[in-house]
């Protein structure tokens, strides 16, 4: 894995599970007939005795994991984020979150990229749903290396954790042995005209946008937020106070995810002008990932343009 190399997060995550499995003998993985897509089949091949294929029965999968956790096993449940968080949403809430079960939840195919599967498969609201569950930790890693770091961190935490991964290739932006700290933003660029706060696969794009902005004479601070919950309150407060205008960027609905979380913090601590870039309140459709991302300004050019407009519009925008 080289810096700049494009690697699918799901593959990196699937391999990370295999590596974690080698170190953690009580770790199990459950999937609901999408192992080849989520890449948990890599774990299944490496440890057939520790992989449980439940069939297309997401609710039962979550319940089985809950029961297994009572015997000291640490199960991962994995399927497409859209089904993981809604088809089994009540099971995650009541059998996992309320019971504080030590179960790790992988929402694969987060956001738009689903391999052209369209509206029914694009999880535009998984972060919002999971973030609202009491006690749930929510991670949205940026690149393949951070997906690995999140898998590791999830195992280090006692209790339920949601880790979202995306299907499409994402450039490696973090160095080897990159680590994630709960509730800590990663400052990827310093600037004074506008603060960009991004999460997940939008961060590599935001990083490019920052370069574009520099060429245009706009100085942007870029904060990457690997954990949406807990969120880095200090970093947000500092951005509102020292910069005073924020652009949030996420591969998710503008409702309830990163943008929502940043607005909540800012509103209570130091209100400022915030623009949320993400999907408006709509279902997505099938088609080419990049064409569709482009429609919502979720490419580097769109991010740069939105940031520039904010920087120029000043604090009142």
């Amino acid at each position, binding site marked *: 894995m080289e810096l700049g190399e494009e690697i699918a997060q799901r593959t990196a995550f699937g391999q990370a599970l295999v590596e974690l499995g080698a170190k953690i003998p009580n770790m199990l993985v459950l999937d609901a007939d999408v192992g080849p897509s989520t890449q948990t089949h890599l774990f299944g091949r490496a440890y057939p005795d520790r992989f449980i294929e439940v069939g297309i029965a997401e609710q039962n999968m979550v319940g089985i994991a*809950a029961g297994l956790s009572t*015997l000291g096993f640490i199960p991962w449940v994995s399927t497409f984020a859209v089904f993981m968080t809604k088809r089994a949403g009540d099971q995650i809430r*009541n059998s996992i979150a309320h019971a*504080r079960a030590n179960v790790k939840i992988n929402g694969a195919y987060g956001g738009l990229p689903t391999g052209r599967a369209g509206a029914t498969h694009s999880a535009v609201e998984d972060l919002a749903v999971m973030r609202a569950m009491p006690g749930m930790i929510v991670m949205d890693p940026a690149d393949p290396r951070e997906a690995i770091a999140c898998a590791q961190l999830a195992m280090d935490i006692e209790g339920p954790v949601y880790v979202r991964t995306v299907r499409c290739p994402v450039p490696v932006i973090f160095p080897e042995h990159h680590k994630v700290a709960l509730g800590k933003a990663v400052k990827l660029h310093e600037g004074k005209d506008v603060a960009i706060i991004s999460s997940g696969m939008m961060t590599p794009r935001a990083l490019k946008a920052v370069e574009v902005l520099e060429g245009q004479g706009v100085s942007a601070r870029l904060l990457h937020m690997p954990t949406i919950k807990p969120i880095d309150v200090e970093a947000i407060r500092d951005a509102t106070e020292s910069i005073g205008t924020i652009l949030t960027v996420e591969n998710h609905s503008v409702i309830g995810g990163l943008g929502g979380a940043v607005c909540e913090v800012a509103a209570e601590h130091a209100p400022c002008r915030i623009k949320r870039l993400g999907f408006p309140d709509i279902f997505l459709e099938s088609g080419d990932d990049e064409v569709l991302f482009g429609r919502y300004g979720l490419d580097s050019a769109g991010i740069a343009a939105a940031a520039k407009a904010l920087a120029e519009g000043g604090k009142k925008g």
Partner: protein
Amino acid sequence: MAPEYDVGSLESVARQIRALIIDTAHAAGAGHTGGSLSEVEILTALYFSFLKVDPSRPDWEERDRFILSKGHASLGYYVTLALRGYFPLDSLKTFDREDSALQAHPDMHKCKGVDYSTGSLGQGLSIGLGMALGRLKKNLQFMTVVLLGDGECQEGQVWEAAMFAGSKRIPKLIAIVDYNKVQLSNTIDANLSLEPFSIKWEAFGWNVLSVNGHNIADLLSALSRARAMAERGPVVIIANTIKGKGVSFMEGNYEWHGKAPNDQEYIAAKKELSDR
């Protein structure tokens, strides 16, 4: 592990549980009375005879597991656990009140003896299945028993779990259905019939036993057959019961699903129970 009781003493335990259910519901002004009264003999047979549990060691690794999947019937469960010695009978006075260990629906982190939190119907069998799978992986010997409501069996997840357990022939897993023929808003048959119920479970790969769920001797013999059969695959005991059993005006009446008796009803109910 369980104290040795004969059927007569178990019947007297059941009578005590029934009376305490009415007392507790009345005092709290809350509780699911109907489905608590229908499960009394099932819980008595389990906790006072069948289950290998030790109230002084609720975390004992080899204890038999029990999940009240129909978690709303916590009233009957708490009374049983208290009588079995998990916590003092006095705690029942806190039922469903602020800061109580005895939440409206069983909370494993608050109440001693509760093996898993429940409340959202349809989830307990999957959790029990997970326990049974974990047991196999760890080579432990305990039995897992899950008590379901009949209305609850309208939930799809129950059948996801049934399909998995049946097709993989998961051992040491027993489901019991409190088949009291009534759910929250009406009778089962009026809302959505489960029949042919036994055939459904059989088709899903389960061994099926049917019993009178108010007859302790029947329950004990079904449970002991189930223990043997469960070595080879999952077993379901369909316990034919009466919702509100023991109080004539509550029996078979969905209006008593989630209601506690007022003062007059309380006196009438207690009189009927003591006349038996």
